[in-house]
């Protein structure tokens, strides 16, 4: 067998038993009593409605799962489609949803455990909570040490459970009495309006099919087995729930059905005299096994989600370290375990809160999954090629999203508030932490920003606001004129190399206003050839520096302004652009708009007035300030890369040369330029710079705080220096630092 086949060892039966094994514990053993109090006998319909909602979502999960059989499931699809902001929400939702579900399963385990052996309550904890805590600690411990679960065990457990439930069903059916079912107030004692609130309670018993998708990477032939297992397991458990709950309610009247251990109660009545004791014990053991396997699968799945999030930089990879001896993701399991324990202790008195909070979070994720599916389809993503496609697109995913959110409205305030708290936490986490660490933008963000001219401004700015910063240092070089690009690329590559970053070569094609962008795109073949040639040359140049290169072509009506947009879109940390008679369209158009933009630089700007790039002797005039910090940095980078000789120039007021020399020496030391030649002049600043520049091959000037770029763009001649010196000039301006609030609402 190939390694590939060995790594993928879950067959259809295994996959199916993951789904069924996770779901069946809750629906049969834990919830019927609680849910029956909510709706009466018609709670059977609540289960069926839950099954239908789950089924619609199962189609979407299947399509996405076959397109991307990756660890992480729902989180992964949403991050790829809707981007890391929603990815963070989905990851947090899935993770905490699983923790709530695990706490719920543990409580279910505790309920049956207390019928088997008396457990004392402790402090503020009920006996059931204590049982649940013991269970929770054991399950976490088992996953921490990774006790080896071999092939058949999982399937055997589920098959044994199904066998026990079949016997239970047969004996139950023999004691089934329709009069018992309708005895207390008919089938709908609370009216039909109770069905959906009932579904809200029982939906937790359908959380399991999506776990198959979290281990999709381990499935054999996922294109076939994943949809069958996901859809099949939902179909099977829905049928089982429908039949068994009906039987249970025909044996014990709904208002007498135990909220703690309903199956044991029904067994006691249904089984004939001599067998009762044994049957109850077996059923109770089955309940323990079922809830344990649900909890176990959930803890396992949450570690997968943590891993997928860590890989994308949404959470720290510290969480996903593998244990040296156990080969388990032990930190992730411990953290999840801690959360489960807290949930059991704090909320475990009310089973319904745990169940519904788990459902709300999962439903939010399902809604996002459906939206993500639509984005993948509509954005026409090339790599998106699912083996299974949902029937009746776009009806199914739209229905899935709507039904999921609609079901949330039947939950109580406390569960919704708890869930929203986690959503808000996820958003805050994204903005504070993940945005700086993740690099993947998501198809939605790309779709919007690539069509920034057609999209409403608010969508574009929203997409930019939440787009990831990435850990990577990105130097964007906008290329307009093929003739002068080489020097630009050289400079940009040096900057990228010094920062261990990536060079983003962007060809901005300015389309005349008269031509619409779409018709320009139709002529794209011409543009493509030019663009490709240009970008290919850029790539070759940059690769001589060993810098990774990314290339983009942008069609736009705007020349200069587009650079700012592109810098934001491509998360540039620095832009290296050319400036001269033949660069980037006509300045001076829409002056006020430019003013606004240049007053708000998205990243550091290096503007090269190119007269042949020669880095042998660099002159850096400085008066201190942040922009000269940048010019100092540029000088040190060029010195390191090209062995340049650096001269620093300070122009002092008349008679203050000594102070000037003092300042300059200190400044040079602070900026790692202590060995540079220091030159202090007095008199007119521009004249001094121009005469010093006679000896230099390159002048690097920090833009003044008043915004040198504005003046440059408007074509005014404030900076005569740029035009008057004979050598190349780099103008440097630092990005405008904006606070988080400004970035969000500014």
């Amino acid at each position, binding site marked *: 067998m190939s390694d590939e086949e060995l790594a993928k060892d879950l067959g259809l039966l*295994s996959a199916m038993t993951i789904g069924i094994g996770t779901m069946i514990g809750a629906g049969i053993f834990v919830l019927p009593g609680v849910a029956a109090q909510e709706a009466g006998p018609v709670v059977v319909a609540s289960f069926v409605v839950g099954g239908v909602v789950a089924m619609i979502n199962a189609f979407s999960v299947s399509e996405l799962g076959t397109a991307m059989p990756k660890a992480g499931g729902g989180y992964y699809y949403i991050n790829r489609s809707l981007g890391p902001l929603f990815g963070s929400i989905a990851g947090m939702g899935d993770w905490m949803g699983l923790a709530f579900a695990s706490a719920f399963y543990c409580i279910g385990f505790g309920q049956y455990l207390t019928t088997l052996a008396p457990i004392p309550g402790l402090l503020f904890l009920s006996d059931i909570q204590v049982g649940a805590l013991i269970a929770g600690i054991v399950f976490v411990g088992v996953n921490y040490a*990774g006790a080896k679960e071999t*092939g058949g065990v999982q399937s055997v457990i589920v098959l044994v459970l199904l066998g026990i439930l079949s016997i239970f069903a047969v004996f139950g059916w023999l004691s089934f009495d329709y009069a018992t079912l309708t005895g207390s107030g008919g089938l709908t004692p609370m009216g039909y309006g109770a069905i959906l609130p009932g579904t809200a309670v029982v939906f937790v018993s359908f959380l399991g099919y999506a776990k198959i998708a979290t281990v999709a*990477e*381990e499935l054999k032939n996922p294109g076939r087995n994943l949809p069958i297992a996901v859809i099949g397991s939902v179909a099977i458990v829905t049928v089982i729930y429908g039949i068994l709950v009906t039987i249970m309610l025909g044996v014990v009247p709904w208002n007498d059905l135990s909220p703690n251990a309903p199956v044991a109660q029904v067994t006691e009545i249904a089984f004939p005299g001599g067998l009762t004791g044994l049957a109850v014990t077996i059923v109770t053991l089955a309940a323990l096994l079922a809830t344990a396997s649900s909890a176990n699968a959930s803890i396992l799945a949450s570690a997968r989600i943590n891993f997928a999030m860590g890989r994308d930089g949404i959470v720290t990879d510290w969480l996903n370290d*593998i244990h*040296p001896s156990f*080969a388990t*993701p032990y930190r992730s399991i411990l953290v999840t375990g801690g959360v489960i324990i807290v949930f059991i202790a704090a909320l475990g008195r009310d089973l319904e809160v745990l169940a519904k909070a788990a459902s709300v979070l999962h439903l939010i994720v399902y809604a996002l999954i459906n939206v993500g599916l639509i984005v993948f389809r509509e954005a026409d993503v090339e790599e998106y090629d699912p083996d299974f496609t949902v029937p009746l697109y776009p009806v199914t995913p739209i229905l899935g999203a709507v039904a999921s959110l609609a079901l949330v409205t039947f939950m109580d305030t406390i569960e919704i508030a708890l869930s929203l708290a986690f959503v808000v936490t996820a958003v805050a986490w994204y903005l504070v932490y993940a945005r700086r660490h993740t690099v993947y933008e998501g198809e939605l963000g790309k779709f919007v920003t690539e069509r920034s001219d057609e999209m409403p401004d608010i969508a574009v700015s929203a997409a930019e606001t939440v787009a990831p910063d990435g850990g990577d240092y990105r130097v964007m070089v906008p290329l307009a004129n093929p003739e002068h690009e080489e020097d630009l690329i050289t400079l940009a590559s040096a900057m990228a190399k010094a920062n261990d970053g990536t060079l983003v070569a962007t060809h901005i094609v300015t389309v005349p206003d008269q031509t619409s962008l779409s018709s320009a795109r139709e002529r794209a073949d011409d543009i493509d050839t030019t663009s490709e040639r240009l970008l290919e040359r850029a790539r070759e140049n940059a690769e001589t520096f060993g810098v990774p290169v990314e290339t983009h072509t942008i069609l736009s009506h705007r020349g200069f302004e587009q650079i700012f947009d592109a810098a934001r879109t491509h998360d540039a940390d620095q832009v290296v652009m050319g400036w001269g008679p033949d660069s980037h369209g006509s300045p001076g158009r829409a002056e006020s708009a430019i003013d606004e933009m240049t007053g708000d630089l998205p990243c550091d700007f290096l503007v090269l007035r190119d007269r042949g790039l020669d880095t042998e002797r660099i002159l850096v005039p400085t008066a201190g300030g942040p922009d000269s910090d940048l010019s100092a940095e540029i000088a040190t980078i060029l010195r390191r890369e090209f062995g340049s000789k650096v001269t620093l120039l300070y122009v002092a007021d008349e008679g203050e040369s000594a102070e000037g020399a003092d300042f300059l020496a200190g400044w040079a030391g602070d900026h790692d330029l202590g060995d540079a030649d220091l030159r202090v002049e007095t008199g007119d600043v521009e004249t001094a710079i121009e005469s010093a520049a006679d000896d230099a091959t390159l002048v690097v000037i920090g833009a003044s705080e008043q915004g040198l770029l504005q003046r440059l763009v408007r074509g005014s001649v404030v900076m005569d220096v740029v035009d008057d010196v004979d050598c190349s000039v780099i103008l440097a301006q630092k990005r405008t630092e904006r606070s988080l609030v400004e970035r969000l609402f500014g």
Partner: protein
Amino acid sequence: MSDLLDRVVLPVAHDDDATATARALDGHEFGSALAVHVVEKAGGAPDKASVEQREEAAEEAFSVLRAYFDDEVDLETRILYGTDVADAIFEAADDYGASSIVITPRGGSRWIQLLTGDVALSLVTETDRPVVVLPDVEEETGGSDGE
């Protein structure tokens, strides 16, 4: 160079394990080496950790070895998958035509060995080729000197 260390298979479980193995091997002359990391499969149940996660951990361990031995050693690396770690290593050793399997046991209490199935013991008892057990240098001498 002894024939025994002519073509060695180095099972590494983790980056710390790789460090210990590299350190232990450094004082000895050896020919070529195949470093392997076994991703233990459950064979029909979900694994303890994501396969990709294990593969990342394996690459980390391999990169420790690569960094340690530079280019002067003919070092291959391979990720193996199997339900039985020792069997997977034996199979790879066969494939490679290994002269021996080199392990550096790093202690661990009895119960950890019990829980992890004690791979080292299986390697020694079920083997069909020489298994060289090198002491973990740091733990033996407390120094960084590799001899």
